[in-house]
């Protein structure tokens, strides 16, 4: 397998991994305070990017906004319209009680998965040494 094929293969895996994490990220980012779409996009990019010491999720608007709309439709986020000086009213999203429960459940699973994977990856590395 060439290096290009390996990169493509890893890229596809990373894509799937991050796809599953967008919902958790959105819910987690909204647990402290409400935010409108563009603000949340910037918050997630800044909060997970190089400036924050992370590799960055680099969410784009085409990923975030449909997820926000879907979560609002499922009752996990509540929407409040507030006037804006730069254009149409902003849609502020905040976590509902159901959204909070979903976040806790997802966070629990995430920690378990993370610990398990970390354990296995570290063990694998140790075995190689």
């Amino acid at each position, binding site marked *: 397998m060439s290096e290009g094929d390996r990169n493509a293969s890893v890229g596809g895996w990373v*894509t799937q991994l991050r796809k599953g994490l967008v919902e958790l990220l959105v819910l987690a980012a909204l647990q402290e305070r409400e935010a409108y779409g*563009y603000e949340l996009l910037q918050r997630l990019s800044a909060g997970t990017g190089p400036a924050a010491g992370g590799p960055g*999720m680099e969410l*784009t608007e085409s990923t975030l906004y449909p997820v*926000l*709309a879907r979560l609002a*439709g499922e009752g996990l986020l509540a929407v409040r319209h507030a006037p804006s000086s*730069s254009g149409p009213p902003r849609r502020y999203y905040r976590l509902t009680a159901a959204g909070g429960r979903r976040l806790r459940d997802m966070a629990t699973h995430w920690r378990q998965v993370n610990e398990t994977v970390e354990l296995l990856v570290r063990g694998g590395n140790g075995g190689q040494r």
Partner: protein
Amino acid sequence: MMMELSAEARARLDAYLDAVEQSLRAAGRSREERRGVVDDLESQVLETAARQAGDGVVDSATVEAMLARMDPPEAYAAAEETGMTNEVRERTARPMEARGHREREQRTNKAYRWRSAMRSAVAIAVILCGTFLIAWPEVSEYMEQRNLVRVASLPNGVPQGVNFVVTEMTSERKFGFWFTGSIAIACGVIGGFVAFAMERRADR
């Protein structure tokens, strides 16, 4: 004074938002979801424009540049299925998609202009044909008369064995030419007007 978009910039933004809405509709997203996505997007573009332009007027070139940096409309429907969320997509796929989107748009515009020009040409040709049909009985009569005069004035007269039978066009036949020509002109004018109106609407 607040920031505002020029008419062209507004039209460009509306076209992008409409395309996103259509893409989401095709993907079976609910009306509420579609509205949420489009509202968030519009809010983002206008906020970015306000930062750039301050209290001035934002022109279409500025909006075009902003939209070129954003995802193509079809990405909004596909994002959750394909998970276009990572830097790999961001750094590699998105520029290609955006470029592809612009190229498709340019190709579509070119094809549309070509079709529009063809429609105008056909309309003009139909009008000319109609004019010719209406004028033909008179032209024909005039030419026959001229030919008769020319033959009659030949020095040796009419050659032997040649029969000149000049038959005047019947009024029914003349009416047929006139009627067909009138229909052709009417079709050409109406077709040309429709083509012009469609082009104007596409420009808006």
